[in-house]
């Protein structure tokens, strides 16, 4: 029986964690550069938001096919960013209108990033809730803290992009499904959460791959218990029922446990997706096909991994595993290993948590599916850890379990040696708290050290950013680090008043350039020179954001400027991130980084 006080206490802790997470994300994102993809999402999001405001205001013509197409669709695959579902973009736009344009509480950038931060905070709270339910409040608390202290997850939580929201909505879908195993009404929650996940990013399409096998397992187990199969219920003294009886029991369980599961996934979720995506309100099948086809025919990104530049399949099967090994704090991974061993031992002993609904199996399947797709060598190369980020809550939950189990074993060791009494009051949680604080401190040290360039940061196992560079791991992506070069440009390159502008070749930072200017992070007189050879030819200063395949930008600049010497190199832990070249004769030649 649940103690009411405990429920309230847990809700308060969850709320406090969410607030702390929100503050942490909003504080760290202030120093984060603009990711290339944020700009089109924000631009489209503003259009979508205005459309919804017109829709809510019952403005004439809002629902016309032409207006919807002009806002959400278009003839080409990337028109109005139609290749991605609209939920988060719409929220970015609404948040920007409310908190920047109307209230003036935040900049355009921070206001647009706020919805992601809120969803990340919600994910932290959900992880606490699930961890607390499985292994107690302390396990939930440490699981949530360790999730918050994942350098790359924290980074993505501060961007107006889809990856952190996807983690939150993926988790919300699984939690809703888990609850739906006990209450049919929760199938509505499942449909809504799944629909919102679908409306966030296409990797939500993998969620049935988690839910359906889990449901089959739950049904199989319950059917075995129902027919008294000793394989599922060791306490049963009955003889093993025949195959036909078992099969009938299984089918019955499939139908009875949650009869609305398939409708929720196959009908409810898609209806929610259609409801929030007006582009699907007509030519639905064709538009869905256009959306999916963009991703199944997605261009392969260039991605450096273990010293090789990959831009064509087959991609090594182990990239998701090794990248996780080098980007998640080592102590968190170690705690997750301890937690996994502890959980496996409990399963072997037949003392698994809530075996009827198998939540641990659900989370294990979640990680396996989220990462498993990237173990297939023909999966298009999108690059980076963000694509399998929905696996991270599982690692953190296991880490929470590992901390509690390790702490508990310390207590037992002390009791066995009679150094403390069995009824030692605070002694039992003290061990777990001590272990948890150590693990969390290690994760905190990684997270702090990773700022403000978590995409270039690698964990202690890799040897930090220099170790990552030695290993030939991807240096960065999305051009975020360009922000670190802006003070140099402002101070040393920007023309004095009345002087002609200095066009800057910005390559990967090009989409963000105007926004940097609007945010006041870049002085006037430094316009974007344009792309490729012509941009370099027009430029008087040039950036190279270092990724292996961006060596071509260095070479284009060398050819045009006649020098290989950058005037400024932005570094992180001694690793070059951005070079700034000045067309000779130099405007001013400064040394420093």
């Amino acid at each position, binding site marked *: 029986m649940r103690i009411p006080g405990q429920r309230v206490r847990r809700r308060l802790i969850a709320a406090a964690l969410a607030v702390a997470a929100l503050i942490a994300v909003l504080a760290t994102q202030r120093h984060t550069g603009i990711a290339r993809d944020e700009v089109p999402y924000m631009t489209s999001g503003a259009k979508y938001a205005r459309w919804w405001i017109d829709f809510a205001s019952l403005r004439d013509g809002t629902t016309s096919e032409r207006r919807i197409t002009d806002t959400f669709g278009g003839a080409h695959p990337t028109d109005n960013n139609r290749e991605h579902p609209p939920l988060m973009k719409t929220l970015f736009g609404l948040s920007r209108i409310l908190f920047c344009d109307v209230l003036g509480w935040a900049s355009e950038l921070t206001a647009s990033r706020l919805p992601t931060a809120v969803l990340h905070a919600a994910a932290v709270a959900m992880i606490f809730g699930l961890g607390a339910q499985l292994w107690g409040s302390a396990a939930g608390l440490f699981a949530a803290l360790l999730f918050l202290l994942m350098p790359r997850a924290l980074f993505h939580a501060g961007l107006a992009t889809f990856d952190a929201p996807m983690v939150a909505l993926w988790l919300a879908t699984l939690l809703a499904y888990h609850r739906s195993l006990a209450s049919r009404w929760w199938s509505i929650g499942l449909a809504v959460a799944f629909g919102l996940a679908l409306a966030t990013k296409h990797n939500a399409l993998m969620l049935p791959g988690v839910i359906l096998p889990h449901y089959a397992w739950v049904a199989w187990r319950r059917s075995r218990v129902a027919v008294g199969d000793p394989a599922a219920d060791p306490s049963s003294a009955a003889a093993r029922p025949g195959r036909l009886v078992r099969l009938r029991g299984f089918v019955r369980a499939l139908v009875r446990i949650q009869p609305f599961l398939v409708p929720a996934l196959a009908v409810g979720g898609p209806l929610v997706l259609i409801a929030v995506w007006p582009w699907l309100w007509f030519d639905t099948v064709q538009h869905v096909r256009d959306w999916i086809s963009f991703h199944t025919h997605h261009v392969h990104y260039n991605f450096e991994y273990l010293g090789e530049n990959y831009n064509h399949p087959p991609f090594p099967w182990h990239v998701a595993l090794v990248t996780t090994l080098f980007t998640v704090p*080592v102590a968190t991974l170690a705690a997750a290993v301890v937690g996994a061993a502890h959980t496996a031992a409990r399963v072997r002993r037949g003392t698994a948590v809530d075996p009827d609904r198998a939540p641990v199996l659900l989370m294990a399947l979640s990680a396996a599916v989220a990462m498993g797709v990237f173990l297939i060598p023909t999966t298009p190369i999108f690059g980076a850890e963000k694509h399998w980020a929905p696996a991270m809550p599982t690692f953190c939950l296991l880490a929470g379990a590992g901390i509690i189990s390790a702490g508990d074993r310390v207590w037992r060791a002390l009791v066995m040696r009679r150094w403390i009494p069995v009824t030692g009051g605070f002694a039992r949680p003290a061990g777990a708290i001590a272990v948890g604080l150590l*693990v969390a401190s290690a994760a905190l*040290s990684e997270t702090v*050290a990773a700022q403000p360039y978590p995409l270039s940061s690698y964990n*202690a196992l890799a040897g930090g950013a220099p170790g990552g560079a030695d290993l030939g791991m991807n240096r960065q992506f999305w051009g975020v680090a360009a922000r670190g070069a802006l003070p140099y440009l402002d101070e040393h390159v920007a023309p004095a008043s009345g002087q002609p502008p200095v066009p800057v070749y910005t390559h990967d930072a090009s989409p963000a350039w105007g926004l940097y200017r609007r945010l006041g992070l870049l002085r006037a007189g430094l316009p974007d020179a344009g792309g490729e050879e012509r941009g370099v030819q027009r430029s008087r200063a040039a950036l190279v954001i270092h990724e292996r395949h961006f060596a071509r930008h260095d070479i284009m600049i060398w050819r045009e400027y006649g020098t290989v010497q950058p005037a400024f190199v932005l*570094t992180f832990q*001694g*690793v070059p991130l951005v070079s700034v070249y000045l067309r000779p004769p130099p405007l001013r030649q400064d040394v420093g980084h």
Partner: protein
Amino acid sequence: MIAAPALFLALVSFWEMVVVSRVRVRAPSERDWQALSAAVRAAHRPGDLIVFAPGWIDPLGRHYLGDLIPLEMAGRMDAARYPVIWEVSERGARARETADLEPDRSQDFGRLTLRHYRQRAAVVVTDFAAALPGAEVSGRSRGAPSVLLEEVGFEPHRCVVVVPAPDQTVRIRYPAVELGAELVGHVGLADVFTRRDVRDPARLVVSIDGRTVADLTVGVDDGWVRFRALTTPHAGAVVEIAATAIGPRARDRRVCFAAEARR
């Protein structure tokens, strides 16, 4: 043993905190770079090659010493023609160019090490990139062959770039070449994006006075591939270098080659 998991987690956590705290401290400082730069400048002579190891410190190295690295040197075919090599090293790394050499001087500058190497430099009697204007070109190609600084295998290389039409061969005939004891060259496909989008290989055949001395097929992931042929020193040889885009789909094969006849 019962407390082993806790001990394990405690040790891992402590170790991680120590490693993380040391990463930033172990990076070379501005002062290290400036002291090393001053030392190089004091002894450097024009034509001395400067290399950086590991390769990822190259932008920083060029920031401090880039004025001593002309474009030709940055886009070199290989290091054989340089009698002196300065190697700027961090974390004990060695550059590919010095792999078979022993330093005659080495000095530490904080976290950086400067090593000085001498080698018997190759004497180039014919540089086939420089000799391109005197060559005869035949075959269907996109534009005429030209000497450019290109990206091949994610490195800069000054080379003859020829783009044969799909399934076609472009022949570059050098009519009166002075040869030495060997002909050494490299070839690769330039431009990362055309390498990604078109996966078909190219072929390079080198012949001297009608006799094939090198025949290579280079794929999109092969990088900068070396070839070498022993030759009889004489003047007036006819050298033909034929580049083929293999297959009807092999568009945009930017075949990039450099070659030297060495004494």
